[in-house]
């Protein structure tokens, strides 16, 4: 039952907060497992468990890479119903957030620290692993490199975007990194200044002088095929149900629009037309983006050409790889991630989120 009002509110015009703190030590990584979202679906269809990763700096901040939910295109197009630039260059990408933002990201409806709704939903697991397996505290070296050597941009709400030194600006969250990480684990700058959460951590290990993560990084074609089919289904389902990543905006706004395109049923080179729903088109566009990096097209031939070509594979580094789980194995130095030697340590918070007061 709610208590009677006892706090004067009208005279108070200024509010402030004290941040919650978390027990993740500096130099440690933290891994999360989410139930929903396209990224989680791709990772789980590859047989992996963890869906997000980050590194703690020990100064009240963590670095991770994530993206807000892209919205529908500003004017509807059958060929690309989802906002293609937002899909191509996920915002904010690599960012450094304080513990209050991390709490909201993990337990709340909030997305990245800079605001907006995140691509991961329904976090079910959260633990940390230390990076001092050989007493050299290599994890802290990696964290410090990200803090001290990566260029940064303040974007409000206590949040900084960071980028690749020598890149064209802040790093973006690029879905194609799950298909091809483009040697970010060796210090290369991927297309679109890209990274995802776990390739960011592998990059920090390399750039801090702790070697290249090379630890079961290649996935066979069967994984690529399964991941693309599962991703398509997930985006379609979320779009249809108005839940999760796509938030129902597309279906609500454009559900009555009908688009025609050639189907895969062809006779003598003439293909019968089909009339896909807007959710099918959105799922095709996202699948294209994951599989080829082409994010401005819903032409299903693009992702089919990857899914149905038995020679295609994927090369990436997953959160489970960073943590040394399953067949990735573990060690204290490269070619293993420097955090992979540790077991899962429980995460504790000093309060149920930020504490607010007004005066």
């Amino acid at each position: 039952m709610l208590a009677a009002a006892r706090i004067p509110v009208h005279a108070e015009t200024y509010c402030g907060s004290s941040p919650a703190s978390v027990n993740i030590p500096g130099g440690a990584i933290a891994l999360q497992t989410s139930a929903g979202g396209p990224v989680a679906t791709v990772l789980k269809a590859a047989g992996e468990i963890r869906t997000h990763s980050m590194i703690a700096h020990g100064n009240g901040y963590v670095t991770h890479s994530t993206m807000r939910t892209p919205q529908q295109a500003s004017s509807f197009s059958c060929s690309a119903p989802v906002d293609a630039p937002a899909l191509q260059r996920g915002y904010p990408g690599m960012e450094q957030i304080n513990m209050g933002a991390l709490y909201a990201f993990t337990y709340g409806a909030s997305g990245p620290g800079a605001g907006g709704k995140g691509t991961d939903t329904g976090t079910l697991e959260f633990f940390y692993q230390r990076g001092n397996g050989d007493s050299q505290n290599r994890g802290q070296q990696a964290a410090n490199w990200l803090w001290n050597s990566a260029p940064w941009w303040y974007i409000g709400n206590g949040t900084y975007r960071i980028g690749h030194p020598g890149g064209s600006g802040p790093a973006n969250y690029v879905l194609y990194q799950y298909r091809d990480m483009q040697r970010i684990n060796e210090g290369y700058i991927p297309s679109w200044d890209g990274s995802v959460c776990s390739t960011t951590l592998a990059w920090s290990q390399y750039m801090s002088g702790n070697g290249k993560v090379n630890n079961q990084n290649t996935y066979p074609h069967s994984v690529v095929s399964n991941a693309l089919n599962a991703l398509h289904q997930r985006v379609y389902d979320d779009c249809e149900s108005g839940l999760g990543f796509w938030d129902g905006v597309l279906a609500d706004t454009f559900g009555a629009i009908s688009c025609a395109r050639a189907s895969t049923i062809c006779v003598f080179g003439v293909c019968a037309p089909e009339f896909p729903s807007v959710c099918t088109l959105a799922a095709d566009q996202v699948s294209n983006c994951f599989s080829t990096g082409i994010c401005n097209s819903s032409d299903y031939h693009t992702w089919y050409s990857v899914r149905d070509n038995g020679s295609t594979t994927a090369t990436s580094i997953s959160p489970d790889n960073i943590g040394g789980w399953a067949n990735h194995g573990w060690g204290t130095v490269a070619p293993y991630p420097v955090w992979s030697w540790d077991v899962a340590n429980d995460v504790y918070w000093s309060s149920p989120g930020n504490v607010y007061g007004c005066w």
Partner: protein
Amino acid sequence: MTRRHRLKIVVAAGAALVLAWWLHRGSGGSTAAAPAPGGAPRAAAVTPEASAPRRYRSSSEVRAVVADAKAPVIDEVVLEKSEVCDGEENLVTVKAHAPDPEDDPFLHYMVGGSTGQRVIVRGSSDPKAYDHAQVIAFGRNGVSTTVPLPRFTVKPCKAAHELLVTYRMLPNRPSELELTAAVVAHGAARPFEPVRFVWTFGDGTRTETSVPVEEHDYSRRPQRSLMSSFVVGCTAYAASGEKVEGRTSLELTNLAFETFAYKGVVKLVGELEPRFPQADADGAVTERIRLWHFHDRPVQIRRLQRTKLVVGGRSTVEEVSPGTLGIGQIGAGQTAESQPIRIDFRQEPDVYSVEYYVEGVTDDGWPVSGNFAVMQPPRPPTPDHHDPVVDPVLKAKILRARELLGKRYVTDEDIWRLEREGLMTNLKVDPAPPQPEAPPQRPAAPSP
């Protein structure tokens, strides 16, 4: 013989006994709940004096990591219904086995875009809705077998209301979830206004609430496999007796199983009491930790190390007596509660967390690991020390929460709870544009 000499002999004899125990402790048989990462030699000696690093084995010694994993066999995919309405739930159950029965506990599944052995899918009138829907069974190390999702008929009908059940993890508890039910109307002639909610959690328990939010603790579920799969249900009843039902699939990773199978370590699970730290009048925080495990042999606590975490500073690590906990042994299936652990943060105001790492060994020779933290609660914001709230909507929510709860200070969880209960509508948002935020001073990184 002097007292000092006698003491030396006693200490030497004790050390010899400990050494002999460490050397011989691997000879017992294992009937661990999780399959032993076995075939491999037993855990390398854990030297109590060694520092935390490298106390575990190499991954190349763990069978679950390196042995050839064979793809599972899908025996059957069972549909709950052969035909459904548009938007109606259909439960898909997957039955599979591993070629090597030892690998059966690693089996887990994906149906369409969702994980779980029992997964809810919804009927869709779109004929292309299931074009890419597959059932995948994963074995050890993620090896997989895939079959198409069996087709079912979707009839041209649609329920007037749907109940969507969602969940989220709660902080500072190993597997406590908050479940939320939301009624979605599909062109209904009149609104459905529920007055009570009956919840089933998929583990044989059920509860009833008057609000569409409930919490449930899954932390004591058996951890004999990599994953635990549940179907969570909720039935919302209107005052008239009319009802709407909804279900969702929930899959939880069994970290204790996984840690033992893939890293050869028995994980201690912990639960702090109180859940969040509370400073007493002297500024000290007192916590107790409840510890348990899922191994089928007793666990002996051998070592306790604590690290004091300082913002932006170098953390200090120290050995403390395991007797501090007051827990010498934790039996199989038992929970042990520690003595009160009191930290006076006034003496160390820069320390924000005291991290305890608990180590031990099972009666059959496996290393044991767990951790917990005694933390300094945040100091309430004051005019002199605070982070400014510049978002006018957040400010309005804070003011509303303080008013409704009658509390001087409120937290994110307070605000979110009131939002879910529908009490954050019609906020009085300050029409003035938010003040531009000055970038804070970027803090320094601690030295490695």
